[in-house]
């Protein structure tokens, strides 16, 4: 860590991990409700658990992105953060607002929360992933603006690197497209059309710029490969991402009242969406093979490579599985979607967050470059437990989804939804058990922060 103000990232990372735990706990509750329908009913209906599960994920990823930005922007720009105090202030505002929102979800009925927060004045609640009260959404906008101002000024006064520019573009895009969450017409088709401008253009658009920038930063630091090489790869990868991903939005416009040509446009372009992910995998392994030094933080390297592989599997392969319109006709809104969602979010965004946390945390905790060997080994156990769990969760949900599509949507005598759910309960049980293993992995991962704190950093042979 070269600049004092980078330290503010630590707050963001810790909060992110706290929310990560919350996300997983509520995920387990939901998983249990899938097989024991009355679990916690009526105190915590499924939709409440789901809101906490998904919103905690979104907020903790945003926290991690912000933390990543606060960490890497000063280092890249070679200057202190413009306004460290603003970063701290915004953290507390964001964290308390997120906490208050979750408390609102848990303590009040959703309709009472809507009344309390005066949803009538500007109704934006009750849409998937955008369940936050309008006032929370406004808060997110304020936090995002203050954050962009802070980061933007830092970049302006310092060295302008490609990584910083791409990161800034990604974060700006994130803020801009979030504004579509305030557009909520009664017309369901229009509502859904622009809802995707938030959701798709986030996760298959601007977030990938953030992902690319963070990955490039960690690879430069850990492999010592020439910045010039990494930066041009970064450009070409994000170029392919947006070239395929923007029109790729069309794969959400098959069955929601939008014109039918989207079936063609969406299928063709989203079929290309795995390409940038594949390039990212090739890129990451290439850079690691060409490394000019052996960084002592092996765990961070593992996370970085893991991101490249799992993002390709989750977003690329599992996305492609059901992206073509004729396939999607049978899989749309089934457990296949859930399978893809889980592996894509974990593989791309959770893992990149954990990559930067793994890379930066040792320095933020006052070490030179890496945690002790013991801590790193523990962390890698966490990596494997969580990653293998998510692979199996995905496989079980895919199994459930294939059966669901087959029983409920194909054949001569299609079966009603709830009957099908009973028939595929076995897969849900397996998923829930794997979810417990994931939680164990998470605990192991978190415990790595507390072991071997006083032990020395591993020594590395210097590569030529």
């Amino acid at each position: 860590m070269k600049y004092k103000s980078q330290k503010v990232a630590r707050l963001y990372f810790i909060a992110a991990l706290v929310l990560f735990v919350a996300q997983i706990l509520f995920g387990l509750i939901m998983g249990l409700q899938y097989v024991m329908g009355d679990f916690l009913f009526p105190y915590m209906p499924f939709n409440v658990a789901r809101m906490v599960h998904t919103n905690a994920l979104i907020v903790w990823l945003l926290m991690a992105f912000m933390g990543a930005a606060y960490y890497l922007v000063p280092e890249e720009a070679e200057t202190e953060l413009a306004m460290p105090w603003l970063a701290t202030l915004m953290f507390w505002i964001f964290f308390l607002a997120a906490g208050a929102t979750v408390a609102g979800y848990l303590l009040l009925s959703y309709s009472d929360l809507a009344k309390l927060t005066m949803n009538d004045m500007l109704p934006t609640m009750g849409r998937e992933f955008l369940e936050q009260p309008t006032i929370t959404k406004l808060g997110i906008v304020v936090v995002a603006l203050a954050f962009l101002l802070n980061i933007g000024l830092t970049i302006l006064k310092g060295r302008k690197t490609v990584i910083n520019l791409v990161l800034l573009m990604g974060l700006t895009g994130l803020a801009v497209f979030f504004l579509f969450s305030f557009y909520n017409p009664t017309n369901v088709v229009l509502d859904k059309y622009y809802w995707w401008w938030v959701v798709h253009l986030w996760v298959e658009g601007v977030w990938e710029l953030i992902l690319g920038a963070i990955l490039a930063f960690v690879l430069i630091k850990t492999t010592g490969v020439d910045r010039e090489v990494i930066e041009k790869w970064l450009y070409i990868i994000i170029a392919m991402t947006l070239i395929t991903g923007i029109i790729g939005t069309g794969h959400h416009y098959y069955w929601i009242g939008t014109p039918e040509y989207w079936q063609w446009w969406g299928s063709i372009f989203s079929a290309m969406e795995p390409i940038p992910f594949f390039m990212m995998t090739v890129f990451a392994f290439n850079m690691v093979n060409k490394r000019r030094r052996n960084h002592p933080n092996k765990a961070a390297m593992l996370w970085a490579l893991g991101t490249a592989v799992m993002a390709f599997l989750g977003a690329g392969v599992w996305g492609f599985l059901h992206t073509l319109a004729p396939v999607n006709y049978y899989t749309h809104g089934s457990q296949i979607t859930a399978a893809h969602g889980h592996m894509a979010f974990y593989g791309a965004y959770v893992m990149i967050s954990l990559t930067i946390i793994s890379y930066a945390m040792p320095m933020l905790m006052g070490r030179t470059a890496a945690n002790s060997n013991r801590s790193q080994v523990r962390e890698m156990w966490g990596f494997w437990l969580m990653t293998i769990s998510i692979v199996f969760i995905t496989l079980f949900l895919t199994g459930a989804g294939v059966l669901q599509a087959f029983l409920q949507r194909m054949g001569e005598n299609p079966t009603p939804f709830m009957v099908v759910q009973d028939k595929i309960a076995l897969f849900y049980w397996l998923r829930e058990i794997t979810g417990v293993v994931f939680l164990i992995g998470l605990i192991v991962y978190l415990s790595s922060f507390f072991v071997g704190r006083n032990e020395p950093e591993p020594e590395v042979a210097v590569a030529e």
Partner: protein
Amino acid sequence: MAQAFTKTMARNIFYGGTLFFFLLFLALTFDSHGQFPSRDNRAALESPDLGPKIALGKKLWEENDCIGCHTLLGEGAYFAPELGNVYKRFGESKEAIMGFIKSRPKDGVPGRRSMPQFNFTDEELDALAEFLKYVSGINTSHWPPNVNG
């Protein structure tokens, strides 16, 4: 491939390509807006009689987070049945929908998934059913494949 490709060119392709495809996306969006009136069941929305009811129905739909369990046109949670076509599944009967929502037991069904009791007034029930009826009138290119959603 050391100097086979340059950073400047990669950058130009990023900016140019992004702009190009975003403009194309806007063009297709513009065309979609031209097509929406013939597909999005606008007649119901614009009817002075039904329009306000549907608006109220959508508000209730949102303020009770129905999307947190159900899908609507395939989007939402996968815990409970698709509702975009529930009007058709329930025999094109608003009364059946209203009756179902109204009759949910307060404490759920032991061991099974169940929908909460929301204590809607008759007016609200009617609005919700009208909203679901409106959604079933959207042209979704024959999705879902059958009435089971």
